[in-house]
């Protein structure tokens, strides 16, 4: 089973990211869950979302406390959220930052292998707004290969309709442009 935890701020679409990856995984024939950290959603406040993907039925409904991959949607959330908390032994972190993996690892004492991507920049160029959820999914798919790229793009089309194109472009660019640390 692959367990994912998303860190972001209210309004950045962390919950949507978790949902899209779960929907694509289900479409691929797997079992999956996605759920928010269950709070009143306030724009700008730190939020978490969770997803689980497995080949068999998933029954555990607790919050994800030992994630295999952590997705950090907001470069500054690391000041207030401990994204390394409970990260599994071979866990990875996918961080939205314009800086190098070494720099962010040092500043925030991050654990695990890092995948970095300047998602703010990509989202601004492709979508016209700094909403990084769909962009970050590109880096997540690149790093984990957990679902087929095309299935995720199908979900983006369904979810975003006429504004899907920008999101798909941002997703594809992050897939290509993210920096994956050697394992």
């Amino acid at each position, binding site marked *: 089973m692959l367990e994912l935890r998303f860190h972001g701020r209210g309004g950045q679409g962390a919950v949507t990211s978790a949902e899209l990856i779960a929907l694509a995984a289900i479409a691929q024939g797997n079992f999956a*869950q996605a759920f928010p950290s269950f709070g009143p959603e306030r724009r700008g406040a730190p939020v978490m979302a969770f997803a689980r993907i497995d080949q068999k039925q998933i029954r*555990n*409904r607790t919050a994800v406390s030992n994630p295999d991959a952590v997705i950090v949607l907001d470069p500054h959330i690391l000041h207030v959220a401990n994204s390394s908390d409970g990260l599994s032994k071979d866990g990875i972190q996918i961080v939205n930052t314009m800086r190098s993996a070494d720099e962010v690892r040092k500043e925030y004492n991050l654990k695990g292998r890092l995948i970095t991507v300047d998602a703010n920049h990509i989202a601004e160029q492709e979508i016209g707004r700094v909403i990084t959820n769909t962009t970050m999914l590109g880096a997540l798919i690149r790093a984990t290969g957990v679902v087929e790229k095309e299935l995720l793009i199908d979900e983006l089309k369904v979810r975003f309709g006429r504004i899907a194109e920008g999101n798909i472009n941002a997703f594809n660019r992050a897939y290509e442009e993210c920096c994956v640390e050697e394992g």
Partner: protein
Amino acid sequence: MAERKGMEVSIAIAEAASACDVDCIAAYPITPQTHVVEHLSEIVADGDLDAEFIPVESEHAAMSCCCGCAAAGARTFTATASQGLALMHEILFIAANLRLPMVMVVANRSLSGPISIWNDHSDVMTERDVGWIQVFAENGQEAVDLVIMGHRMSEDKRILLPLMVNFDGFILSHMVEPIEMPTREEVKRFLPDYEPQQRLDIDNPITMGPVGMPVVYTEAKMAAEWAVRDAYKPMVEIMGEFEKEFGRKYKPVETYRTDDSEILFVVMGGISETAMTWVDKVRDAGVKVGLVRFRMWRPLPVEDFKKAIAGVKVLGVLDRHFSPGGPGGPMAQEIKYMLYGQDHAPKIVETVVGLGGRDVNFIDFDQIFDRCKAVLGGAPVPPFELIQVRGGHYGKA
């Protein structure tokens, strides 16, 4: 068989109500139920469901409206949670005692105060006496299935009672997971058009809900007792029909890996599946433990429960609500009622967990299991205890 599709459970419930071709929906939005009625209002507005959607000013009005709709002979659906269910309280008795079929889903949530929007069972457990049929779902698929079965049960001429489908707020309501959504045609084969026994009709006037003088009130209450108790048999029959049509099996009391267990946990609702994963884990380590879960809560399936726990030495009961200064949690109370005075009745370790959205995880199950093992080994049965309290328990701080 329908395709397995990822969807949020609340959306799936709205789709299920739509597949049941409901005629009237009167509802007021409240977290964590909101997505259910929001999506139903969209379905109606899009013209995909020919129904009256009545956006009322409160839950009191919602339930009153539902009574009116059901009395007029409409297939009626609503949804609520927490304070909303509490606000419906007085009308819930009326719906039941007028024998008005309807289905209400409750996204179980704690009651204030302190204000909490999160999940536990305090809303439904304080409505045990209203005379409704009450069933619990443990995952999204079950919530969908129970809505469909619920209409058939509620409208069955042998039952004719309102029915409450409980599904945990957030833990289930906001979960995206795979669901097999039956089509409207499939549902129609299982759920025939509603033919009311009696209905308000200006050409053939009748009175519903007149005053019950002392000379008839007791008899009316006796009739209510029979109505709910006698619902058991047709409900089981309908679960069987559902299995034939859709292939998924439901029982009044569900069990999980109970064979050879001296200790069983009794759970209900959304934490059941997490408890199953815990059982799998400890059973793999050679420890014999299993689960008993109430699917049907009203009518209380006494004989099924007794059968499920036969021969067991200790029951660990995990309640999600309790009565302050009273006899502890509702499940434990009712289990004691079922077992009192029986030879070889198991000892009962009562715990209250998962209040107001507190995550219930393997550490909690381990802790409760340790208490059960101590009692199995001869330790005195402890009084009911709130697990997960920071800074110690009552009397032990």
